[in-house]
Structures are given as structure tokens and as C-alpha cells.
């Protein structure tokens, strides 16, 4: 085991190496100009030169994305529970929810920004919107996947609907919630990044926008690389949460 520590490293990080290698080959073989895309090494040097800058921007983006994730998840759960109460509500909410999800939000960013203000609120709103829909859809179907026989049990006991919701239906939806978190935790970072970029408010998105306007591609890509790293870390964290909960809440 310890004799070959690099083996464990390769097993865990070959995707990273693969992607970095692919990146380098793409640039060399495609004769990509430095102004279009920098090499991995140049990006690494850029981050190493300004660690505090990128850490601060990454932290800012992470914070707004997390706020959006929390609000979006809460909203998705709340509406999914409404659909559990009434099939009528299910029908009524589904199409509008799809409509919102289907709207190319990036295109309407100027409109949203005008409504909410050119600041973090709009960034949070775009993270909320990207989180809301998968959460709503997955939880709504999770609320209907109950362990066999248990719905009948609550019926025979004469349990109130609210008691069944609290004791049976919500815990049954925990695996769905975990999958939704897994999808959203990574995506809300990217949604926040795009919103920051379009409005130039703060965080990694703004860093990207200002670097791009200076034609400093190394810095622009460095901002993206930090965003990717934060997104992968968020995914890994949600995956760990899911594994921890799986024993208790088998799907």
C-alpha cells in the first residue's frame, strides 16, 4: 500500500490528469492562440501568483450559490409537498414549473436584474431557479415512492394526513432530496458564476468578466478553474452526505 502511494493517487485523480492532458493536447494540436485559451501551466501560475484574490472571489461566489441552493431547495420541497396534498395542485404547478425551467434565464437576465436589482439578489435568484426545478420534480416523485404496505398501515390506523406526511411521506423522500442536492449543489455554483459574469457584480464571475475585457485569458481561465474546483468540491460534499444517509434511508 504505502510502497506505491502514487497508485492511490492515480486511482483517485486520473480524471483530473486526463482532463489536464486533454486540455494541453487540444491547445497544442489545435494551434489554439494564447488569446483564445491558455495552457494549464499558465493558469496554474496565475492562481499561484494571486492566491488570496482567487480564494476571496471563490468564497464570495460559494456564499451566494449556497444561499441560492438553500432557498431553491426549500422552495422545491415546499411546492412538492403541496402537490402531495392535492392532485389538482400537482397539475396546476407542473406546467408553470416547467415553463420557468425552460426559460433561457440567461437571456432574461437583464429583465430579472431590473426587477431585483443589479446586485447579489439577482445572482441568488438565478441559483434558486436552477435548484428549484430538479428538487421539485424529484421530491414530488419521491413523495409517492413509499415502502410497500406503509400507506395502508397509516390508513388502517386512522392517522391524520399531516401525521402521515411527517412520519412517513417526508422521510420516504429523503433519498430523492439527496439526489436533488447532488445535482443542484454543483449547478448552483455555475448559475451564480454566469449571473455574476453578466452583471459584473462580484465573485468569480466578475473576475472572469474583468480579466476577459483585459484579454488576460490566463486570469479568466483561472477564475473558471476555481469555479470548477468549487463545484466539484460541492458535488463531493453532497455525495458524502448521501452515502452517510443511505444506510439509514435505503432508496
Amino acid at each position, binding site marked *: 500500500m504505502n510502497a506505491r502511494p502514487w497508485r492511490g493517487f492515480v486511482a483517485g485523480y486520473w480524471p483530473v490528469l*486526463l482532463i489536464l492532458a486533454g486540455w494541453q493536447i487540444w491547445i497544442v494540436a489545435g494551434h489554439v492562440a494564447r488569446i483564445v485559451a491558455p495552457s494549464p501551466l499558465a493558469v496554474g501560475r496565475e492562481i499561484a501568483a494571486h492566491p488570496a484574490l482567487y480564494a476571496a472571489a471563490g468564497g464570495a461566489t460559494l456564499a451566494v450559490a449556497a444561499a441560492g441552493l438553500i432557498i431553491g431547495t426549500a422552495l422545491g420541497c415546499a411546492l412538492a409537498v403541496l402537490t402531495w396534498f392535492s392532485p389538482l395542485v400537482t397539475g396546476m404547478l407542473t406546467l408553470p414549473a416547467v*415553463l420557468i425551467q*425552460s426559460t*433561457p434565464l440567461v437571456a432574461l437576465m437583464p429583465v430579472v436584474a431590473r426587477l431585483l436589482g443589479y446586485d447579489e439578489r439577482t445572482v441568488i435568484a438565478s441559483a434558486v431557479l436552477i435548484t428549484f426545478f430538479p428538487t421539485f420534480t424529484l421530491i414530488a416523485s419521491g413523495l409517492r415512492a413509499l415502502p410497500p404496505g406503509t400507506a395502508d398501515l397509516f390508513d388502517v390506523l386512522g392517522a391524520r394526513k399531516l401525521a402521515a406526511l411527517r412520519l412517513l411521506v417526508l422521510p420516504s423522500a429523503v433519498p430523492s432530496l439527496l439526489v436533488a442536492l447532488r*445535482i443542484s449543489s454543483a449547478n448552483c455554483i455555475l448559475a451564480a458564476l454566469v449571473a455574476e459574469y453578466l452583471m459584473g457584480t462580484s465573485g468569480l464571475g466578475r473576475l*472572469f468578466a474583468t480579466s476577459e475585457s483585459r484579454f488576460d485569458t490566463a486570469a479568466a481561465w483561472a477564475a473558471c478553474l476555481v*469555479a470548477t474546483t468549487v463545484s466539484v468540491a460541492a458535488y463531493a460534499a453532497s455525495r458524502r452526505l448521501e452515502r452517510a444517509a443511505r444506510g439509514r434511508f435505503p432508496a
Partner: protein
Amino acid sequence: MTLQAGRIAAGLAGLALVLVAWEGAGRFGWLGPSWPPFSLVAAFIAAPEHRALLSAAASQTLREAALGFAAGSVAGCACALVGVLIPPAAFGIERFAAIVNGIPVIGIGSLCAVTFPPAVNPVVVASLAVFFMLFVSATAGLQGAPAGGHDLLRVLGASRWVTFARLQLPAALPAVADGLRLSAPIAVVGAIIGEWFTAETGLGPLLVNAMQNYQIDLLWAAALTGALISMLAYLALGVLQRAAARRFLGQ
């Protein structure tokens, strides 16, 4: 039969409610001048000269989204399969998928633009967005097969392949169908963003132009057209998803 009719009626009622709210908000200017009433947007789309423009753009975008949807779902399912059939690779593949998903489109957009022909770029971006959704849902589905089934097949001495084909694949189909449905709007939005960087036709350039020239009517009309196609795709895939749930989950 009547249940189906009730669901459709409720869906239409919900949609009507949203449209009425939209109309009111636009008509009375509750949400500012960049929020036109629905009737205005609808009239704009319906006008013959706009209709031709929008339907040409929409069919272009739809074609790209469909190609990206197909490529992304095949790639996502394939990665999930490899992870399940070759357990030692599972961790790395998952990390690979998370990284690919975490790469910001705004970062690599210009790189893609110089690498791929303009027509391919939107397909690539759409497929990247779909890829992750399918990977996550297929993995969750493949791992969610009942434990008793695994035990049974192990006792029977079944090969890994038989276990997969007879147990894991059928168990995964409902989750895959869920993922496909969730991906439909994502593919359309992905294609639009992909068009952003290179394309001259399609809904993406239309949106960019409308935004830059502050043509609010056109902006909304293009966004609504995009939303409508993804909603139709979502509804069509919903039929598939319900069939899968009925057949394999006994719902």
C-alpha cells in the same frame, strides 16, 4: 380515463393562471417597463413576419437541442454503465463526470468556438448539460436495485452481465426516464447558450440581438418560443416516464 382528463384540466388551469398573472403584471406595469403583457408577446409571435423568423430560429435550435440531448444522454448512460460494470473505475468516472459538469460554459465557449464548426458548438454545449443529469440519474437507478434481487442472482451464480441485464437495468429505467425528462429543458437552454458564442441563426443569436438593441418584445417572444419547445419536449418525455414507472415500479 377521467383521472387523465382531470390532470390535463388542472394543468391547463395552472397554465391559465400563470398567463393571467403575466398579463396583469404587464398590463398594469407592476414589474416595470421590461415586462410586457402576455397578449403583446403572443401577438408579436403570431404576426406573420415574426412567425417565419421565430419558427426558423426555433427549428434550428430544436435540431441542435435534439442532437445534444441524444449525444449527452448516450454519453451519460454509458459513463454510468462503465461505473457499474467496472467497480474499480466507478470513483474516477464519477469524478470525471463532476469535473466535466463543473466546467463553466462561459469559460470554454470561445475555445469551443475556434475548435468546432459553428453548427456543432451548440450541440456540444447542450450535450454537456444533458450528460451530467443522465449520469446522476442512471447511476442512482443502477445502484437502487433491491438488495434481495442481488442476493438471489448471486446464489444462482449469475454473471455480472446477467445481474446487470436482468436486475439493475430494469431497476434503473424509471430513474433514467426521470433524468431524460428533466434533461429536455436543459438541452434547449444549453443549445441556446451554445449558439450565443458562434451561431448566426437560432434562438440564441436572436436573444443576444434583442438584448443588445433593447427590443423587449423580441426578447420575450424568443424566450417564450424557447420555453414552449422545451415544455413540449418535457411533456412528451413525461409520457415515457409514466410508462416506465408503471411497468417497473408498479405505480
